[in-house]
């Protein structure tokens, strides 16, 4: 069983996380879910990866991108795996803001 290149840090029943999941399914992307604590202060694993304790956070091994904020992630996935020019979009995404 090979490890999917994409890891999604998520919270059970978090609508922002489900929004990203729908997008991953839309583009038929393999991913591994890591479910984290409801308590913000206990999410050190997320902070180590992304610098923030909010979820969702995506770590995309295809492009080396780590990103928080569902709106940013959806935009990134559209740009990288959608109709747009995938290569240049991925490059742009790495410098896109992390949001609040």
């Amino acid at each position, binding site marked *: 069983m090979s490890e999917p290149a994409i890891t999604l840090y998520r919270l059970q029943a978090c609508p922002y996380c489900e929004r990203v999941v729908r997008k991953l399914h839309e583009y038929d992307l393999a991913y591994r*879910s890591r*479910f984290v604590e409801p308590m913000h202060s206990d999410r050190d694993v997320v902070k180590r990866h992304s610098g923030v304790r909010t979820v969702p956070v995506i770590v995309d091994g295809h492009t080396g991108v780590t990103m928080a904020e569902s709106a940013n992630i959806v935009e990134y996935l559209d740009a990288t795996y959608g109709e747009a020019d995938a290569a240049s979009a991925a490059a742009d995404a790495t410098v896109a803001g992390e949001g609040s």
Partner: protein
Amino acid sequence: MVEFDVVELDEAAHPEEGDMAPDFTRPLVNDEYWADVALSELTGEGPVALVFHPMDGAFPATYIWNELRDRDLDAHDVTVVGLSISSPYEHKTLIDERGLADRDVRFFSDPANGVAAEYGIVNDLDGMTGISEPRPATFVVDEDRTVEYAWVASEWPAFPEYDEFEAAVERVA
């Protein structure tokens, strides 16, 4: 031991030493997150000590993990994993309360008890209609998923044969 008869369980048709341990995938919980993991992924990295235990919060779960923690089972070159019907949230509490957060111990969550069915060790709980869990059991499984050691409770309640289990871990580690 107690001075009265305990419940004798029917003989379990569980994997014996030399058999292939059934593979399964369930959420595996550590102190920070949980993710689906297959037993075969763990054995791919080395031998695994697999502990089926009563639901988190029941006193046998407390005693078993206190004992295995105090024996430093995870200090050997094996992957130590528990499995119960408890949810990942309950496993996180168990990890915290048993002082396992900084130890190399993780827990599979199997609320539907399907893994126990695969292993032939389902224990229906009297007085808790609709709930079954694994009977207490310990296995040591090597890199090829071959069972090197198997102990399954033949009565209820029962606790692992800790010395035997630890010796089996030392043989494969």
